């Protein structure tokens, strides 16, 4: 038992933030901690780590007989234009969706803090609504909205304009993804804005800065950690949003997740499909690391 290790923090460094930790290690719970983690740990070992391990191993074989090791799958992936163009398109989709979500989520989060207390629960309900409705259903709705017989094109025709034809286009996919991902950006921003000291905003205004200047010089920098947290979630989930990408993108636009599915189930090319999925997974992990780095730096700037 290493109680000593824990007793140390409140005794030697009795700062306020850590004070509660002294109470945390209740007798009897301490020794049980790893036992409580064990069931989920074993489950994830079997159904998350082992499957990804198998993917990594299978991706290192030369062909589908799985008899000879080779790096040929990765070499093929990055040398054939078709493959890396799909990867680049997927990354571009992630970046555009993240930017659009940020542009819409910030006003929404600001509006949430501006409306009265009575309206807030309703607004919150509308914000989290997409998170709680089925992805297939939401995507189906976008087909009805974006399609040839849809609301947008029929309104444009009624106004005597040319139809926009957004279905099966990048803009259509971005629009549908934005609905689904907007809550992931808005919720951290609402929390981030709530933490800003109101006196800073008042100070900025009373020193003569206008609304725009105050926003860009005070509000925006102070919410940077929330922006980064939200962007991380939006980016990673929109590059792997299989349902929206495959339905709204249709046969015309292919992104990584659908490509992996076609390789695996259509062509039955396990090693190449495994390599493609490992590339997607690595992309996500690199993005997470990068976002975390930037996030920590921005936190240090605010607190330091």
């Amino acid at each position, binding site marked *: 038992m290493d109680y000593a290790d824990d007793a140390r923090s409140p005794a030697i460094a009795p700062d306020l933030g850590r004070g509660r930790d002294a109470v945390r290690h209740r007798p009897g719970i301490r020794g049980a901690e790893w036992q409580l983690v064990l069931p989920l740990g074993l489950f994830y070992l079997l*159904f998350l780590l082992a499957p990804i391990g198998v993917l990594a191993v299978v991706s290192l074989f030369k062909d589908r007989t799985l008899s000879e090791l080779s790096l040929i799958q990765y070499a093929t992936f990055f040398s054939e234009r078709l493959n890396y163009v799909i990867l680049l398109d997927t990354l571009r989709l992630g970046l555009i969706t993240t930017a659009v979500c940020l542009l819409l989520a910030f006003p929404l989060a*600001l509006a949430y803090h501006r409306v009265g207390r009575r309206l807030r629960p309703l607004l919150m309900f509308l914000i989290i609504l997409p998170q709680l409705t089925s992805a297939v259903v*939401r995507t189906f709705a976008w087909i009805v*909205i974006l399609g040839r017989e849809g609301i947008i094109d029929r309104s444009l025709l009624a106004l005597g304009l040319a139809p926009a034809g957004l279905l099966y286009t990048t803009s259509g996919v971005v629009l549908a993804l934005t609905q689904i991902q907007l809550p992931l950006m808005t919720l951290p921003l609402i929390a981030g804005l709530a933490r800003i000291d109101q006196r800073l905003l008042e100070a900025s205004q009373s020193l003569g800065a*206008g609304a725009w200047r105050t926003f860009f010089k005070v509000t925006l920098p102070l919410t940077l950690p929330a922006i980064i947290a939200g962007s991380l979630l939006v980016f990673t989930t929109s590059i792997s949003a*299989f349902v929206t990408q495959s339905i709204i993108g249709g046969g015309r636009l292919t992104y990584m997740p659908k490509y992996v599915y076609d390789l695996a189930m259509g062509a039955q090319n396990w090693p190449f499909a495994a390599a493609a999925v490992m590339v997607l997974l690595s992309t996500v992990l690199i993005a997470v690391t990068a976002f975390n780095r930037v996030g920590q730096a921005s936190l240090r700037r605010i607190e330091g």
Partner: protein
Amino acid sequence: MRDHDQRSFDAVLWTLAGFALIILTLPTIVVLMTSFTASESLRFPPSGLSWRWYVELLDSDDLQDMALRSLKVAAAATGLAAVLGTSAALALSRNRRRWARLVDAFFMSPLIVPWIAIGLGILLLTSVAGLPLSMGTLIAGHTVVCVPFVLRTTTASLSQMDPALLEASTTLGASPFHGFRRITLPLIAPGIAAGSFLAFIASFDNVPISLFLADAREPVLPIRLWQMIQADLDPRVASISAVIVTFTLVLMLAMERITGLSRQLTR
């Protein structure tokens, strides 16, 4: 000058916020309205109103079977995730040590790991191990992606709990298990329930994992819907979708009443 500045800021703010609200809510409204269409094609606003696509649903035994199977899988995966997730949250919620933070990040990782990787990975694992696909592997795959939802909300409600309460019960001689059942569990139940609700939706609606792991002889509803939407836009998709949306909305309002769902999700 300053007035003008404030006015232009407010104009941009409310325009964009209004646009955001339209994007957020329009699809739900569209689904509910198109389901009452009288015609064979799905246009909006619908031409003529009727119940015919709901009546068709009552006659579609295949779709009902798939829906029932999806509900069973979601219930099993959610139950398993609730037990595993709550147990892990109890150990990790107040633990600031490095190993605990790493384990926590690992347990939350299915939120960012592409689900297609989990589905294909489990499929390859079972085929390497020479095992057939079964309901069990499907439920296991779903459970992996359900756990983070329960873990997040349960951890949040545990960290809001006053530790002195458990202290008191231990001092008064209650066993740790008794303390958990009589004090901790009632206090964190809303958090577990909110997380389980999200987990249930994530499973009931899952396509990327089921595509690889669902047996073709035992199809699940979202996969069939995904195929129907891509193939010919069968108007029954609209009525099924409307039923799903209505059920979710009713459940969501009930959860809001009982557990304060939106509070659970935003803290």
